[in-house]
């Protein structure tokens, strides 16, 4: 019996296996951000230290105002203390730290792959659920809690149960105006927000092969929204080309050694998965969410669903609670939903390809909503500016900001007012996620830009008909 991609990587990192199947895993890379700054004094108080600081990378992202260029620009208080706290820990323990004035600064899940910290075949953790993002490069990457973060800081290892494996095959190819975001929303809609709980999900199939690295990262990013801590894709030529030459990637003989190993990281043809699902990539349309779980997603061409048509009373109640919170009525066309604010950014969709997709829609048009465009890193921002994307956004009346998590989690001052409705490229439409009483519709960057220039949820394919022909 062959091995899955996941098991191949897992087995290489097992230090010790208990009789009950729990293993002590070696962790190759650990990423951290500002919200963890309090954990460093905590391990110190236990007489512990950072075991392998050269494998730890810190970057402030959650608490960074997108109008601030330096720490001094952050208003005094807990936001600044958090950013300063991480810097102090980096100074004390000597781990890598990309501060606000460093071009490499940005959202931890954008920075990792961009810097070559994330590589195929490794284990990578971060105290953030969207660490699943990094699996797009063909590694085991997962989010952990703060007690586990302390454990990795102190030992560079982690106790884990081996998850079950699921393969999601997306056949065919994606149509015009359809991106990684639409694929993952279609996946979550299909399997449910708890459909991946207990699993590591490997994505495969021609539609995945055809996706860019950015699209794959979006796909793996939101795998946690299907309940799975791990999403991963076998490394291919695109992955290897992407990694080559990045600052922390291996070079010379080590690169040669790595490439040979990486090319063997595929699920064997006779590998057995605990669960298999197939989706038709040709059938996936631009998606939007209408409720307070990412599983409440539909093609933008459809209408708000009617809970009365659901047979399960618990599901019915859940749907109705979403409709009440979102102030939506069954039967209304999704494309009639008016939007107050558009947010283009977050670890889900703030990479250069995402900004290009949004700019292609914004070009020559005017935003009818408040629109924030927040690049994922200083390097993404520079690249976008070199391509003139910032000018396109500004001429469309959109705001061009400094990198950070921004309105995805609303911890940096960027937020919605109670009752305000957003079209957002972030990953969570939970109640109050973007500010107390906020209402969120999740969608792709192109769809977000379409909502901005029309003032309501819109099918980007209609808007881009001319460009298409």
């Amino acid at each position, binding site marked *: 019996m062959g091995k899955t991609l996941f098991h191949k990587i897992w087995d*290489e990192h097992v230090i010790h296996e208990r009789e009950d199947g729990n293993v002590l895993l*070696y962790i190759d890379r650990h990423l951290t951000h500002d919200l963890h700054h309090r954990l460093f004094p905590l391990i110190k108080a236990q007489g512990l230290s950072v075991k392998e600081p050269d494998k730890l990378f810190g970057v402030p992202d959650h608490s960074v105002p997108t109008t601030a260029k330096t720490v001094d620009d952050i208003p005094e208080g807990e936001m600044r203390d958090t950013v300063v706290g991480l810097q102090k820990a980096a100074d004390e323990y000597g781990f890598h730290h990309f501060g606000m004035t460093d071009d490499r600064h940005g959202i931890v899940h954008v920075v990792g792959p961009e810097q070559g910290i994330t590589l195929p075949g490794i284990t990578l953790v971060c105290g953030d659920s969207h660490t699943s993002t990094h699996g797009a490069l063909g590694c085991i990457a997962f989010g952990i809690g703060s*007690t586990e973060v302390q454990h990795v800081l102190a030992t560079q290892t982690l*106790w884990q149960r081996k998850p079950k494996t699921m393969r999601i095959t997306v056949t065919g190819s994606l149509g015009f105006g359809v991106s990684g975001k639409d694929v993952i929303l279609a996946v979550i809609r299909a399997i449910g927000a708890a459909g991946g*709980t207990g699993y590591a999900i490997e994505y495969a199939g021609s539609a995945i092969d055809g996706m860019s690295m950015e699209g794959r990262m979006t796909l793996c990013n939101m795998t946690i929204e299907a309940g799975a801590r791990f999403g991963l894709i076998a490394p291919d030529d695109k992955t290897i080309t992407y990694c080559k030459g990045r600052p922390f990637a291996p070079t010379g003989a080590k690169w040669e050694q*790595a490439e040979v*190993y990486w090319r063997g990281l595929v699920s064997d043809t006779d590998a057995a998965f605990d669960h298999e699902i197939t989706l038709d990539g040709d059938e996936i349309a631009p998606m939007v969410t209408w409720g307070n779980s990412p599983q409440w997603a539909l093609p933008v061409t459809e209408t708000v669903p009617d809970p009365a048509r659901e047979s399960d009373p618990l599901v019915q109640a859940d749907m109705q609670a979403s409709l009440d919170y979102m102030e939506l009525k069954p039967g209304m066309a999704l494309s009639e939903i008016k939007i107050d604010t558009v947010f283009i950014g977050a670890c889900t969709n703030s990479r250069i390809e995402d900004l290009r997709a949004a700019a292609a829609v914004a070009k020559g048009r005017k935003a009818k909503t408040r629109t924030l465009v927040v690049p994922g890193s200083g390097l993404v921002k520079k690249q976008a500016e070199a391509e003139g994307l910032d000018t396109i956004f500004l001429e469309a009346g959109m705001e061009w900001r400094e990198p950070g998590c921004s309105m995805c989690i609303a911890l940096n001052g960027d937020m919605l007012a109670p009752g305000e409705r957003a079209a957002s490229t972030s990953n969570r439409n*939970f109640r109050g996620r973007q500010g*107390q009483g906020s209402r969120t519709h999740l969608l792709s960057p192109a769809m977000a830009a379409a909502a901005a220039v029309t003032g309501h949820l819109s099918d980007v394919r209609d808007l881009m008909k001319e460009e298409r022909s």
Partner: protein
Amino acid sequence: MSGKPKLEPFTTFASVAVPIDIANCDTDQIIPGRFLRKSADDPDYHRILLHDLRFKPDGSETDFVYNRPPYRGGRIFVADINWGCGSSREHAVSVLTANGVRSVIAPSFGDIHYNNCIKNGVLPIQLSSEDCATLRRQLRESPGAEIAVDLETQSLTGPDQTRYDFTIDAFDKHRLLNGLDDVGLTLAFEDEISAFKTKYAAKHDWAT
């Protein structure tokens, strides 16, 4: 395997139980993001649990179940599917323990939240969707009814004295029964970790 007790061991526990009839109750509901920079030492920390469900924007209380006596102060929650999905924030367990909550019973849990519970001495118990719905209904019908949990025998007794058996990973059970923290356990493996690193570096020089 060695390790010193660091957490309050979980053996048996009985309490008034609180029915939480919310599917996919994410960790943003359990603790809204804007409180993530608050220290657990804050005297008002316990108020943050399920904050936006319990308090109106003006700070006054809603009629949410956990606000109502005799549910207020209940230390076992019975929830619906996918309790604790979403963000990895361990604060979602800190606010449970700040209120004395020691067990959550649900049909399924967010994987990261489940692990965070174990690491903090909170017992997550998985029962079927039907059993959880039955328990929640009984708790709604008999406010103040208790649930009794016995981790050693992996069973709980509902308000009507029905016994439910549950499964739990052997390692998780061991840690909870003895109040062990992982670092204490892992430090006993220092030699094995060193040996592994030597072997790993030889095979995967590129990754080190």
